[in-house]
């Protein structure tokens, strides 16, 4: 594998334009998935799914930022963030896929081969973020490919290319993590003390996310799980425990059958 690549999304630069949503759909020919007024601020997309691989969240808040608030919107905050598949280092969807449709690419990303997927849906509950999903009427699962086809010819993903403010930044993960750390320090110096990173830590529950974020509030506020863990993490210990239980049970059976009064 060449070095792992991914996204660093600096939400302090997001202006909520949704160019990422449109570029993704246009490049990947993802179908329109519902003309629904959701009333979720300016978010009518709702969530990631089989036919939504980029989703911009809008969170309106009244946050006292100034004791003497001057003017009626002085305490208003409108958070915007473009969500995407995390391309986890430890990806549960990949772990559980029985057909091998899901695989780890040479870029360290996780991609579904739609001609192999048999629509079993096993990966859907496996994802701790609720990203991967089955497409209605089709049955197969679909998700962000991190523009695998574009990476193959040296181009950046469509969403990163289209983002006018460079909120979505693409590159080698190590480089992005260094850059993100510097950005956090800079923001803290400027007084933006709420700024923190989400998913940059290789020691976290998914081994570090291939798409990590700079957020201004708790992840739950953005609709992200606070402490995601790859759902297959406990499988080895579960099997060990099951194995130990089986052995114990087996030993008990042996003792019961062959031991005692004889």
């Amino acid at each position: 594998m060449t070095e792992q690549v991914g996204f660093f999304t600096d939400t302090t630069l997001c202006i909520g334009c949704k160019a990422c949503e449109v570029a993704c759909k246009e490049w990947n020919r993802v179908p329109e998935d519902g003309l629904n007024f959701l009333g979720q601020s300016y978010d009518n997309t709702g969530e990631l799914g089989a036919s939504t691989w980029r989703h911009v969240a809008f969170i309106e808040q009244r946050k006292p930022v100034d004791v003497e608030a001057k003017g009626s919107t002085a305490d208003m905050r409108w958070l915007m963030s473009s969500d995407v598949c995390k391309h986890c280092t430890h990806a549960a969807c990949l772990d559980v896929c029985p057909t091998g449709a899901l695989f780890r690419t040479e870029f360290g990303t996780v991609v579904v081969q739609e001609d192999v997927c048999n629509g079993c849906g096993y990966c859907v509950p496996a994802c701790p973020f609720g990203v991967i999903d089955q497409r209605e009427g089709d049955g197969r699962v679909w998700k962000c490919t991190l523009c695998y086809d574009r990476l193959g010819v040296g181009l950046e993903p469509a969403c990163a290319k289209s983002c006018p403010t460079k909120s979505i930044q693409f590159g080698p993960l190590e480089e992005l993590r260094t850059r993100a750390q510097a950005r956090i320090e800079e923001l803290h110096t400027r007084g933006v003390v709420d700024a923190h990173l989400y998913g940059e830590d290789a020691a976290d529950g998914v081994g570090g996310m291939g798409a990590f974020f700079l957020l201004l509030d708790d992840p739950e506020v953005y609709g992200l799980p606070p402490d995601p863990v790859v759902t297959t993490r406990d499988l080895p210990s579960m099997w060990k425990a099951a194995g130990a239980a089986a052995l114990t049970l087996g030993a008990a059976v042996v003792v019961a059958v062959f031991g005692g009064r004889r």
Partner: protein
Amino acid sequence: MAECHPVGFQWVMEAKERGAKVIHVDPRFSRTSAVADVHVPIRAGTDIAFLGGIVNYILENGREFREYVVRYTNASTIVTEDFRDTEDLDGLFSGYEEEDAAYDVSTWQYEGRELDETLEHPRCVFQLLKKHYRRYTPEVVEHVCGVPRDLFVEVAEALCQNSGRDRTSAFCYAVGWTQHTVGVQYIRTAAIIQLLLGNIGRPGGGILALRGHASIQGSTDVPTLYNILPGYIAMRHAHQTFGLQEFIRNTGNRNGYWGHLDAYLISLLKAWWGDNATSANEYCFDYLPRLTGDHSAYTSTLAAVDGKLKGYFLIGENPAVGNANGKLHRSALANLDWLVVRDFQEIESASFWYDSPEIETGELRTSDIGTEVFFLPAAAHTEKDGTFTNTQRMLQWHHKAVEPPGDSRSDLWFAYHLGRRIREKLAGSRDPKDKPILELTWAYPTHGPTQEPSAEAVLKEINGFTVADGKAVSGYEDLKADGSTACGVWIYSGCYADDENLPARRKPHWEQDTWVAPEWAWTWPMNRHIIYNRASADPDGKPWSDRKKYVWWDAERQEWTGFDVPDFKKSMPPDHEPSEGDVAEWGLRGDEPFIMQSDGKGWLYVPSGLTDGPFPTHYEPHESPFGNPLYGQQANPVRQVFHRKENPYNPTHGEPGADVFPYVMTTYRLTEHHTAGGMSRTLPFLSELQPEMFCEVSPKLAAERGLEHGGWATIVSTRTAIEARVLVTDRMSPLRVADRVVHQVGLPYHWGTHGLATGDSANDLFPLALDPNVHIQEVKAATCDIRPGRRPRGPALLGLVEDYRRRAGVS
């Protein structure tokens, strides 16, 4: 700006990252406000009070950039003693003629050429300015605009601190300023501020007009406006019987670059009539079409309603949704004999005859509509060569990538072949009225399977060339008044210098020598990025500061130089003084940067050219729940109104029935959709982002009117009623104005009956009430009522509106 120019907004974000302070003044908290340092919620329609407050703050606290003001503006000019200000006449200027609802501007003129550089003379512009805005105090701003005085002072102070020799501040505005009955005066107030602070012609300063689509700047430069010729040359009027020379004398200026109007106009005539235009026939000046009055869009619409307009070409526009009082427009379209619509999609202005709201109510019936509608599909910009001229005056060439599908054709193809066919039909005619058409130059090279005319050939003609050898001229200074040059658009001259397509240049800024990056495309005039940039240097030609140096006088080489092309005569030294007989640019001094003005100065005071006053004045919108707290004169005394049954007005403050429409309504855009929706509501990926028409209301307004978040609301005016989904949000805040709280209803205006994402049109609610200078509609501030639930369908809708009219006492 983030909503409407998200790509351009990246530069604001970059500036912010470098420490710039971003202040957003807007009735709603938009995506711009989300990333701005300060958001100032303001009552829609009161920006002149707000900006006038800043003018007053600058003057009262002595914060003006004194040397700039004295030397570069008309602050020191003295006005005649007959002039009376709005302070003297309770909201009117002298010369108001009530019967015509117009001003005689003779009392606004300068008194000779006397100047008072001490700025003390009681009738000098500076003192008149002080007097005019004296009452625009922070308390008044709070009272009128609903902006708390501390917040107002914070903004004024930030502007003052960030202006001067070492720092500059910029204003960016769009139709939130222009779409008012005092729209032009809004811009004027900002111009006064920027002149007082010395921000015009300087890097990081200026006033950036954010235009509404990719090439609308181009559509005023090479105009689709009825009253100007290319390059902002005035059109002739039919009642004027004078010839070319007198026209030039009357419309040009003796001094400044309009002193060469003869060269620009004659070169234009040579471009249009070629060898047929000679000095003997005044270069076919007589062939130019002449105005018989106001032929602006709304007047033409009313003419159609009255059966006086037979046919209409509608190209790349959707007035059935985009114009105020939509019903009026649709009725107008239904009253034409023929209509040609060119667009990519069947927009509402083409489908009105079967799916307009009036078909639903029964006011119009398809079988009764006699209009023959021709829908001609248009090529997209990827399917044709050409240029965009964007908001920065930048001409950017775009290359054809694919052939247009089916019958789609470019506008160039359409205009050229239509002209060709008309000329073929008229060939051999002896009728004098056909000569102007038959004698036009119309031989552009064509190519390809559809015989597409060469856009580059047109660009060259726009640039201009010497008639004798057909070589491109290098700029407007090469244009002559003797018929030896031809030029389609003098302000664009230079874009094709040396026969090179400069708008097609694509050198990224990181590969260029200066941050101005002149080798990306081409900006008019003469690739100058900041106009009036002479003002970035002091009267002696030295930059005001090293930090803000931009162009300066190089005494060794005896020429102006710098990071940008100097917007000044290159060889004119800073100490040049005109002699007797010097005209045009030489008629100005070397320290007069405003080279398009006859006196070379930035105008704080406008003695002529505007219909509604030499100084901007706070007037209430045509429909307002508030009385004008500053003057007895409620609204703009010369605003354009149309009292006809198709254009009823809500009663305004002080009139009986005004309380029937107690809320302020305003319109705006969303990032996801484009203008009247033709380019976005028909596309699935954009439609799903904002699928339905909605209104934005504060929680307090929702509670007051029983509106449910996610539910429906009906918004009503005397024109009609529309429905919208409800978005209850803190981002629309109630404002404390005068003695009470006022609520504003926010309406995105993109929706119409046709497309994937359909809904009612916000502009249907607004009347025709226009700015008197440019005939732009007031769709940013009017009054309305709002109630929960969907609107009645069919003829019942008319019943609801009738009920409101009755209650409001409007017949």
